[in-house]
């Protein structure tokens, strides 16, 4: 039993995400094998390991951007296949290493989550969020081509949380950022986790982030390294 399931006052408390023997194979190549893991709501799990080891593939499987080829994956007690993939991705959001910003302005990006849900855009919330991440409210109409690398990453992160997901998967979102931007983005993620209760899964190569990990899972050659999961 890999789940963190336990009984509390007679009720079964189920882990938010449970992976049992998850594998992923392309042709003859086994990218992931025997991945078993349970992640509780509100946790912050850091995935580390060498490049090409399967971390991003694992994250994409959890985000339903790829389908596992073996094993079981459950979310909120239900098999992932029982969810509509679109509805699931609105609850389990994935942010890429080098994000592509859509359209022409910051507004186009922050309005996108509302647009796809056919909800009216909450521009006041967007302005507050921009100010919180160190941008100005007036930047809402700034052209995306005029943003620096750090600003692009902040806008991309905000795009993922304009409407809160339950799980936020961050694939090396601080890679390529300078120390100041890296620290800022990290504090932002911490805020999402601590204040907003979002479950966070981060993939990183950064040693300081690995050292500071609340829970570390090391993936090497498509497998969780024994003792690499804490």
């Amino acid at each position, binding site marked *: 039993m890999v789940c963190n399931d336990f009984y509390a006052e007679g009720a079964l408390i189920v882990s938010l995400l449970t992976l049992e023997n998850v594998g992923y194979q392309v042709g003859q190549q086994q990218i992931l094998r025997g991945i078993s893991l349970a992640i509780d709501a509100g946790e912050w799990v850091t995935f580390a390991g060498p490049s090409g080891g399967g971390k991003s593939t694992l994250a994409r499987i959890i*985000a*339903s*951007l*790829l*389908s596992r080829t073996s094993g079981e994956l459950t979310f909120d007690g239900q098999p992932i*296949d029982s969810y509509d*993939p*679109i*509805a699931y*991705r*609105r609850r389990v*959001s*994935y*942010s*890429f290493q080098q*994000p*592509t910003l*859509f359209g022409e302005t910051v507004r186009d990006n922050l309005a*996108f*989550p509302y*647009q*796809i*849900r056919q909800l009216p855009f909450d521009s006041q919330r967007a302005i507050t969020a921009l100010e919180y991440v160190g941008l100005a409210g007036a930047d809402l109409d700034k052209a995306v081509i005029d943003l620096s690398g750090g600003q692009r990453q902040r806008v991309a992160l905000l*795009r*993922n949380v304009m409407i809160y997901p339950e799980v936020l998967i961050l694939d090396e979102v601080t890679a390529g950022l300078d120390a100041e931007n890296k620290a800022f983005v990290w504090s932002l993620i911490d805020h999402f986790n601590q204040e907003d209760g979002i479950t966070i899964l981060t993939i990183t190569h950064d040693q300081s982030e690995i050292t500071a990990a609340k829970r570390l899972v090391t993936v090497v050659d498509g497998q969780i390294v024994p003792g690499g999961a804490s």
Partner: protein
Amino acid sequence: MNLAVNNQSLVLALGLVMIALAIGWKEKLGIDRDMIIGVVRAVIQLFVVGYLLKYVFRIANIWLTAILIFIIIFNAGYNAKQRSGGIPKALPISVGAILISTGVTLGVLMLAGAIKFIPSQMIPISGMIASNSMVAIGLCYRNLNAQFKQERQAVLEKLALGADLKDASRDIVRASIKTGMQPTIDSAKTVGIVSLPGMMSGLIFAGVDPVRAIKYQIMVTFMLMSATSIGSVLACYWAYRGFYNERKQLQVPSN
């Protein structure tokens, strides 16, 4: 009728093909074989069609006319499918899009009284509509394939944010529809000042007053706009789903 193309002039005109062949051979383009096959096929196909049309026009049967129109549409759909680069269900999509674009356009032309359901009008007009729709759909497919590869990251990010397939593909679909319609729009802009298109040239060749000939050309311009827009919209909206699997994940088709 002041046309003077006889078999002897056709043989002499074959000299023009020799020029093209000589260029291909000298520049080592490697297209000599294709060119010869193309010329032989064109001559045989056109002779067969010429005699077939003569027969069909003479007996003027509604069902035979309808069957010929369906053959034209199926062939156009089959050719468009060949340019799909592996997009799933490209044959039914292409045939369906060409069938509807040709049907709607012919219907409007008939209702407007511009053409009648007689073989000498329906068959050539259907051929013009279906072939333009075919080219437009082929361009749409090429653009869909190129854009889904080029914009893969943006599509993935939209999916990751919870966009449905339509929202994730909207920009690509729009760009592809535009690509399909662009040649027709460009040619409409330059008709008369750059080119004297086939229909109009043919009528003038046959001795029709140019002022009367342009009216037909205006009709052709309108009908091609309609056919390529309907064909492109239908083909793009039906085809983009083929870039995703049943779990709504992006998959670029293999050729």
